[in-house]
């Protein structure tokens, strides 16, 4: 919220208005798509972007993922990983570069339309509907689906048994890790064509982290490409087909997960030794 002209800072008086859940995505009119055959399934190509009219955060950054692959983005805090994800999802204005999905240039599309195109996204923060029950959260995940989604819900419950237990509880009353599970579950409900996760394992216990990664691998093997940001970088790179290291908004290293793990420079500077 650097130079937000409309803010009144921290006035949290609830009788005036209800700042809770107010969005931050600047709405934009949806443009047209163009055919752009070839290339990976999803690619954010040469992206330069920033917030509002602030400085560029991303500098000619490229992120891509192909069918059945897991791509992991790592990097220091503030490097622009989340910003990159948001840019791919159309949540901020791209100043340069293109986003292509499945042979189509979708740079001009609004986020809603990208959801309709089959992109699923779990943001880093405020990624659940806190006042709605766990089950309703999952239902909202399936909002764009017109078919019967009960099967998918059962699958999610199988994956995260604790959610089934707390099905009727308001998601806002869950613990940090439990919320994270709801968030991933919500995205899975979409049955997306491509899944983007921003630090899905932040704050989850080791056992849940393992399960999450297991599930992510399974999902990827069904052919759904997965693009994720991770700070539990070593675990994540171990399962990654492709790894990106972002530094100050630009690609610093790119390679397979194994390659990056093996690179002493990367290990030392970004993976904590």
């Amino acid at each position: 919220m650097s130079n937000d002209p409309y803010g009144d800072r921290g006035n949290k008086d609830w009788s005036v208005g209800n700042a809770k859940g107010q969005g931050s995505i600047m709405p934009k009119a949806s443009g047209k798509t163009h055919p752009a055959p070839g290339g990976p399934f999803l690619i954010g190509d040469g992206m330069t972007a920033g917030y509002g009219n602030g400085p560029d955060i991303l500098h000619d950054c490229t992120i891509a993922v192909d069918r059945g692959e897991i791509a992991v983005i790592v990097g220091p805090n503030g490097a622009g990983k989340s910003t990159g994800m948001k840019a791919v999802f159309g949540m901020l204005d791209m100043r340069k570069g293109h986003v292509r999905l499945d042979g189509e240039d979708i740079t001009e599309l609004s986020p809603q339309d990208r959801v309709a195109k089959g992109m699923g996204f779990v943001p880093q923060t405020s990624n659940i509907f806190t006042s709605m029950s766990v089950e309703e959260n999952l239902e909202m995940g399936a909002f764009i689906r017109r078919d019967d989604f009960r099967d998918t819900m059962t699958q999610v419950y199988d994956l995260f048994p604790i959610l089934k237990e707390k099905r009727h509880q308001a998601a806002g009353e869950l613990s940090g890790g439990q919320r994270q599970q709801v968030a991933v579950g919500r995205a899975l409900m979409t049955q997306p064509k491509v899944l983007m996760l921003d630090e899905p394992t932040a704050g989850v216990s080791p056992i849940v982290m393992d399960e999450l990664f297991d599930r992510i691998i399974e999902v990827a093997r069904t052919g759904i490409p997965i693009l994720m940001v991770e700070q539990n970088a070593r675990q994540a790179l171990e399962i990654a087909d492709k790894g990106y290291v972002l530094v100050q908004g630009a690609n610093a290293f790119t390679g397979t997960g194994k390659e990056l793990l093996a690179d002493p420079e990367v290990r030392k500077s970004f993976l904590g030794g």
Partner: protein
Amino acid sequence: MDLLNAFIALSNYVLIPGIAYGSQLALGALGVTLVYGILRFSNFAHGDTMAMGTMATILMTWLFQSMGLSLGVLPTALLALPFGIAFTMLLVLGTDKVVYKFYREQKAKPVILVIVSLGVTFIYNGITRFIIGADDQNFLDGQRFIMSARDFKEMTGLREGLAFKTTQGITIVTAIIVVALLFWFLNKTRAGKSMRAYSDNEDLALLSGINPERVVMITWMIVAALATIAGTLYGLDKSFKPFTYFQLLLPIFAAAIVGGLGSPVGAIAGGFVIAFSEVTITYAWKKVLGYVMPEGLQPDGLVQLMSTDYKFAVSFVILLIVLLIKPTGLFKGKSV
């Protein structure tokens, strides 16, 4: 017999008017609470939206009356109501497009929107007076009473009468129907759930494929309908006067807050709390006690806790006490 008389007197002067007034406030507070919950600001223009809607309904009513249309025993205004609602929907959607949308898209903080809504109030205020003037308008026709006090006395032979006005009946019935519909809509339909989701977390709603502008549009349409219904019912029961509609804002907001801002159930409960605290606390028990107490012990004075001068003040004290016990309102003020 005397106990019955006492009860009738109490019903006539406290219960029935309280319920009718409470329903009117509840409908108004529902609109306020919806805007608060979903569009995230306290809409000061609600009172004047009610006035605009009622004005449209009145104009249509006059048109129908001049064409000779009527609903028999029911007021013609009910026939005109859908047109009034349609007009108000267009009005608020237009206002949203011209005014609120800009701030929403800029992610303006709620207080800005509150003050903007104050500006809208002023403008509506002026327009209403331009079109229909500042005067009192009585647009009630049809049969006035379901049961008048005199008829009741004749029928039962009791000393106390019980009046039940057509408008009171309509108000109560409409309120029940509208509230039931609203609840069904919010909790069971896809559109309703998407409204709740949007209210909870705009960004995530967007990421779930919910179209925010659609949610906003539906919300305004519901709010317009609620405002017009509330305004028309109120106008039928009392009378239409633009100034009074602005004044209504205060009890309506009090109702919404005491019920828990953002909570529809709360808005309804709040409406009744306000209505009854206004009507009961300053009630003079002389008449009722006169029936209940044995001969000779009947009171001379009014047996009034507080004079009606203080009815508003007293109802606020009640609110304060309610909030002291439940600081977030009767129904935890969470979103929709």
